[in-house]
């Protein structure tokens, strides 16, 4: 199967620090790919390469190519802002804007001119239903997003990301700031979302990777040490380091 997203020889350095080394990974369409590994292994850094988030950091130097449907998003004539419309992102800590719940979701639609004015309420409703938040907030769409609980805020951020109908959603430890119940809800949501979206998730929790992902990549010191179907990697790791990590010997 042709990959949805594919990195080729991605190298990244912050100043003189070489953080990612020749990463080649293929993300299949409408699957969940989890990136795991000890802190500082470069998994979040790799994720941020995939929507060119490092462009904002003058210290970061990226070499290599990333293809979205065969198109190189790192080629010089590619529209950088447009790539983030196609590849959405959910962050480690919920980061709703200090605006109303409604406007948080309408924001992406407005700046990308994705919907007519009268269409916006429908898309907002649809997106909130898509992240299972609608029933909790339908009567308070005008109140501030910051009045929601942490778990609700994160689901709002997911709704905000899916509202602009991206093709890929990147999630950077989306549940690490949440309690177990909220985590469960977000995990269920991710499994539901993979019917429509391709998802790449960075997680610290091996259990989470095992529960929800189809493929898992183990990273260590800037290398992609192992990558394969989740069950296979967890039951029969090929790399000694992977085995040590998933058995809890370090990490």
């Amino acid at each position: 199967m042709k990959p949805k997203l594919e990195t080729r020889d991605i190298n990244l350095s912050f100043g003189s620090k070489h953080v990612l080394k020749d990463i080649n990974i293929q993300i299949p369409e409408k699957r969940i790919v989890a990136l795991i590994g000890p802190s500082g292994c470069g998994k979040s850094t790799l994720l941020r390469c995939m929507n060119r988030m490092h462009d904002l950091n003058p210290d970061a130097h990226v070499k290599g190519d990333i293809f979205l449907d065969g198109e190189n998003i790192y080629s010089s004539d590619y529209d950088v802002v447009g790539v983030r419309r196609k590849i959405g992102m959910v962050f480690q800590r919920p980061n709703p804007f200090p605006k109303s719940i409604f406007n948080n979701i309408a924001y992406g639609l407005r700046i990308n001119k994705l919907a007519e004015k009268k269409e916006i309420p429908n898309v907002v409703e649809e997106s909130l239903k898509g992240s299972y938040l609608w029933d909790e907030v339908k009567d308070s769409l005008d109140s501030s997003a910051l009045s929601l609980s942490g778990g609700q805020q994160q689901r709002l951020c997911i709704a905000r990301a899916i509202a602009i109908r991206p093709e890929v959603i990147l999630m950077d430890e989306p549940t690490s700031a949440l309690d177990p119940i909220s985590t469960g809800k977000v995990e269920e949501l991710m499994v539901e979302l993979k019917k429509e979206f391709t998802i790449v998730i960075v997680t610290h929790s091996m259990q989470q990777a095992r529960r929800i992902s189809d493929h898992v990549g183990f990273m260590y010191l800037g290398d992609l040490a192992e990558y394969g179907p989740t069950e296979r990697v967890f039951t029969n790791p090929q790399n000694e380091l992977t085995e040590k990590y998933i058995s809890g010997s370090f990490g």
Partner: protein
Amino acid sequence: MNTKTSQFIGINLLLLCSILVISFLGIILWDILIKGSPALSTEFISEYPQNGMTEGGIFPAIMGTVWVTLVTALFAIPLGIACAIYLSEYAEDNWVSRSIRASIRNLAGVPSIIYGLFGVAIFVQGMGMGTSILASGFTLGLLTLPYIITTTEEALKTVPQSHREGAFALGATHWETVRSVVLPSAIPGMMTGAILGLSRAAGETAPILFTGVAFYLRYLPAGVFDEFMALPYHLYILSTQHHAIEQVRPLAYGTALVLIGLVCILNIVAFVIRHRYRSLLKGH
């Protein structure tokens, strides 16, 4: 001496210093209030000075200060905010931006009388504005700029990076991110800084001294190219330049009270804005 005693002495010494500082403010305000309030009346605020300034009110001085503060605001706020946005959101950390920042810091340390001289050279003569509200407003604007730039930059820095990343991740351009996510969150801090800067400018004498303020005028300014009277300068005249200083002392205190009142009002406005926006952003 054991640690308990030294802690006791230390804390109380700090407390004493704080009380001392507050009491200075208190004494000043009390003095002005006591000596100035007898002069206060509707006539004092609404009438022209009469009989060689020994009677009557300070209406033209109030209006002059309002005018010149408005010009200062219109000049310094947009310019200062634009500069701060550039420095905080766009400028890379290189020698250009570092030297701009250093210049702004130095600008803040220039004595106000120097601004006055500069205003004469550039605005009054160089640009041919003459001695006018415009020239004085611009001069005061220059004086206020460093303050507005610094406070605006601080306000922009308090906007979490995660909000910017959230907007970028939705496909917003740099400018869209600044305009629709960063600025709304930073507005309360920016407004507070701008208003406090203006309230300082409103009380300055030296920068307007050579650039447009007049000893006495029998008419209100009709436009920005007219000369004007101003509260701080009026106060200066009444307390040092008048032929009957003792006689006009109550009027001087009244003027001081009005000036402090104006500055207080501006500060209260700044406080209210900050408070209202803060609770708005918190979502109550």
